[in-house]
């Protein structure tokens, strides 16, 4: 290859004279993301809280002072701070702290797993539909619309009822429920991005469909899809709780926040603080997911100047 760097003529100042001038160099992408997150206290605090919740769920067998499934009828419905039971006991005398720790395991799984799988499937379908358009788009989107015809909770109940109870079937039904909205979101952002000039510019430089999807479309649609998806995690925890309540999800003795919330419901006049505890944890977890997703979106967007 011949060198391009020839003298370009007298109209221009000699390039070599300011060739080594330093402008502010852009830091690497991940360095920039890290710097922005470290400057964002809301995201940091949410991440810390979520980390504590996740760790305590993982370490539940070590941390829990009692067996979460064995109650003592003598110490039923004791309030928060009762001697020996830091967070009191539930209606059958089981230690609340232990149950909440163990409950975190099932709830976090019910929140994260269906949404992640739905993100993979729904995201691929939506991006494909948006990118290729035409017949592909029509087929994928109309099939999605069929699922949309049912309210999400009813659809989950119907699928669960058909498949039977158990954790696996709960996860499966929730996954199916979350695919259609993710397909829709991905399709709409992909349609927007694929019509932007830089996609055509890339095509003009010789990029094929796969390269366009991988380098032009995917990085530009990932952020909005991820943000939407993280907001579904909280919904997923709550839906899983609802299914358990109806006897379609995990069944009674199991420790799960939604199930606990429902069974403590009757105690709300006796000890409202105790009855609210699982709800507080569901709320805290969902809030943390939402705030983190929001923080990530601003940190990962190269277009935003900070």
């Amino acid at each position, binding site marked *: 290859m011949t060198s391009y760097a020839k003298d370009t003529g007298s109209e221009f100042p000699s390039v070599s004279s300011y060739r080594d001038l330093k402008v502010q160099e852009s830091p690497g992408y991940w360095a920039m993301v890290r710097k922005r997150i470290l400057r964002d206290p809301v995201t940091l605090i949410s991440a810390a809280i979520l980390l504590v919740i996740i760790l305590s769920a993982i370490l539940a067998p070590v941390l829990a002072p009692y067996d979460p499934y064995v109650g003592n009828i003598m110490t039923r419905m004791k309030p928060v701070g009762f001697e020996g039971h830091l967070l009191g006991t539930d209606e059958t005398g089981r230690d609340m702290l232990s149950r909440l720790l163990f409950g975190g395991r099932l709830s976090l799984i019910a929140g994260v797993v269906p949404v992640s799988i739905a993100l993979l499937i729904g995201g691929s379908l939506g991006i494909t539909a948006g990118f290729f358009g035409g017949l592909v788009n029509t087929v994928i989107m109309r099939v999605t619309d069929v699922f949309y015809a049912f309210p999400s909770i009813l659809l989950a109940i119907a699928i669960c009822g058909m498949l039977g109870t158990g954790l696996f079937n709960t996860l499966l039904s929730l996954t199916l429920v979350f695919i259609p909205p993710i397909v829709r979101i991905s399709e709409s952002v992909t349609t927007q991005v694929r019509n932007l000039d830089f996609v055509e*510019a890339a095509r*003009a*430089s010789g990029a*094929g469909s796969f390269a366009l999807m991988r380098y032009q479309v995917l990085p530009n649609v990932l952020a909005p899809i991820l943000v939407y998806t993280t907001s579904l995690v909280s919904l997923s925890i709550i839906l899983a709780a609802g299914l358990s309540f109806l006897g379609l999800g995990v069944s009674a003795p199991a420790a799960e926040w939604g199930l606990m919330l429902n069974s403590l419901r009757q105690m709300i006049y006796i000890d409202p603080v105790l009855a609210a505890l699982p709800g507080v944890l569901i709320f805290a977890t969902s809030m943390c997911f939402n705030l983190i997703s929001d923080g990530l979106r601003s940190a990962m967007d190269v277009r935003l100047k900070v």
Partner: protein
Amino acid sequence: MKHDIIAEPGILEVSNLHVAFGRPKDRVSVVNGVDFSLAKGEVLGILGESGSGKSVMLRSLMGLFPRRTHVTGHVRLAGQDLLAMDKKTLRNIRGRDVSMIFQEPMTSFDPVFTVGRQITETIRRHDGVSEQDAQARALELFELVAIPSAKSRLTNYPHEMSGGMRQRVMIALALACRPKVLLADEPTTALDVTVQIQILLLLRELQREMGMSVVFVTHDIGVAAEVADRIGVMYAGRFAELAPTRAAILTPRHPYTRGLLAATIHGQQRGDHIETIPGAPPNLAHLPTGCAFAPRCGRSVAACTEKMPEMTVFGKTHMARCYNPEPSQI
């Protein structure tokens, strides 16, 4: 790079190009029979109103069409017909033998990658060189288009650059694989006037140095006069006039070209009304059978409404589609 073009009359040969959008029953014909030949090292400027088919014609020169486009005719680049080849060959040619500078430097870069990455990507795609070699070439290209502190600029994201700077990057990107033909779609329209002239001078300089052929589209007659060797004036998807720059501007033969020239602003016109062409361009879905310009033309004769006039050659290289052309001396 050592293609034998002596056997070919031009590096780019376009014949009988028609482009239409939409389904057969409500078809809109945007390009209605374009023929031209571009010599090696020649700069062709294409002028015309909005909607005259300039940009669509330019894009079809590298086979870029939106969905549901009906194309007929031939676009031959160094003897190969771009419209007849398979997609893979076409992709290999895009960006390597023929590349394009887009109008909007603001939106024509992928916002999530650094500009350096976007250039090295293209170089590696077409030449299969190592990352280091590609980076070295990207740096040379940046210096070629006179971007200060090129090395650190390569690590910038598109939003960190100004419009003029980005247009320079776009030119660098278009030149990355030493194309035979460079297409430019209003390369200076989105820039402010002081930057426009810098970019134009840069383009002309690079074109001469690299011996490229250039087709560029513009609204601005001044720009065309500054840069082009030959000017093509498009109206309703056809060339109304195709002539060497000097002849097109000094002695236009087609009434439409004359109207366009009369509608530009000159220094001595202060206080006068600017001449205009009455009416509006025709609806491309229902083109008149005769000359598309006849309804707005002050010189139309009976034949004009019956049949589209053929390209008539005046002198050696001056061509216009008109039954009643302007006199050769004003």
